[in-house]
């Protein structure tokens, strides 16, 4: 059981027997008034979204979801194949179920596959993934602390904003939850 103060981006709750994930969250509160929790929720089965504002007295059932470690194998005809390394069982996720994870997917990466009543419905990657910059404008030397950014392309095809000093061929660490640049990785 969750209460409204547990709400945050990524929390999964059950509403009318379907699992929902909080995709956007904001805490709002008029200065002297009640705390309100403004959420955008996405049905994890059909992708339908709706917005709702909850109050601190509201509470929620947790969705009965299970996660299983599986390894990414390949992509074929818009389907992503994963395998359980102990049982060799394979499952497939379609493009929609992959969400942003497809931007950070590298061969053989271990991911948590999300199961709802034993059906694969989603994926979560490790919070941080190291990816190679495959396409970047050269660095105008000397500019190390201005906070300026430039777009670069990663090995997965994903375009990301990074500090200007990041060069092509370098490896960077990306936060898969926000899709943002974290730091350069040496070696």
């Amino acid at each position, binding site marked *: 059981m969750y209460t409204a*103060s547990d709400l945050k981006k990524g929390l999964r709750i059950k509403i009318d027997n379907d699992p929902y994930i909080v995709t956007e969250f*904001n*805490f709002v509160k008029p200065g002297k*008034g*009640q705390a309100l929790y403004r959420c955008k929720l996405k049905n994890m089965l059909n992708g339908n979204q709706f917005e709702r*504002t909850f109050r601190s007295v509201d509470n929620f059932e947790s969705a009965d979801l299970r996660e299983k470690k599986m390894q990414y194998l390949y992509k074929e005809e818009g389907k992503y194949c994963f395998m359980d390394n102990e049982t060799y069982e394979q499952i497939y996720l379609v493009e929609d179920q992959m969400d942003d994870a497809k931007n950070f997917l590298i061969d053989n990466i271990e991911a948590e596959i999300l199961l709802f009543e034993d059906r694969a419905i989603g994926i979560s990657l490790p919070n941080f993934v190291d990816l190679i910059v495959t396409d970047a404008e050269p660095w105008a030397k000397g500019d190390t*602390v201005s*906070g300026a950014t430039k777009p670069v392309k990663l090995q997965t095809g994903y375009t990301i904003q990074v500090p200007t000093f990041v060069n092509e061929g370098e490896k960077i660490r990306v936060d898969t939850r926000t899709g943002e640049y*974290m*730091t350069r990785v040496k070696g």
Partner: protein
Amino acid sequence: MRDDGFQLARKRDALQLRARLIQSIRLYFINHDFLEIETPLRIPAPAPEEHIEALPSGNWFLQTSPELCMKRLLAAGYPKIFQICKCFRASERGNLHLPEFTMLEWYVAGFDYQQLMDQCEEMIVDAAGDLGFGDAINWQNRKINLTPPWERISVQETFQKFAPITLTEALSKDRFDEILVEYIEPHLGIAKPTFIYDYPAKLGALARLKESDQSVAERFELYIAGLELSNGFSELTNAQEQRQRFNEALKLRTQKNYATYQMPEKFLDSLENMPASAGIALGIDRLVMLFADAASIDEVTTFTPEDL
């Protein structure tokens, strides 16, 4: 894990603006004969309000606002005082909220809430001028004209104009805050900054009731670009009535299983001697957000709790 230097370097412009804004505000009050004061951050008893949660600090609490101590100074004969300090409110975290934030609070003996609105307007216009903004600011693709006079509209009127239900209905169904946030706030302070005033009596726990209409308290809020920036009121100076209101708030807190606070007796004692006056609190972080065109409070503060 985060690239600390890089993240902090990105805040340089906002932090410089913040420093200049605080200097400008300070100068405004000094030039208008206010005394800058400091009161303790750690206090034994915060003002009992239904929806504000204090953070415990030992057997005491961190202040949720400097209100009670500042009013004791007013009562002791300091007629014009201001303070820029940290305030703490448990479980408040969002794009506009930090559990530790910076508040500007000032009090003027002899003023009522209308005069305080005038002064608030003048102070912000002066600061904008000092910072080189002229008569308009741009925030998140909106242009807000700061030329006085700013818009003033009663809470009752805002409900008539923007809300799907009446103010009376919102109050009876305990939906006031929800309606305010969902339907009203997005329209406030869009072309010009907006003061909304005359709050329902029970929503002004420390405010004086309006003489000509006892159903409302002489309380106001300032909004710029839909952002709630400041809260002020004509002060209640009747100790007996204040005690009664605190008792009601404490009773509600007990019913809802919230932490209970002890009665701020020394404050109530001094209230007997407090002159008619008005006081106002303004969120410095949010004012910086507006000038810095920042979408989140995180962008205008050095470190958030998550960064520590």
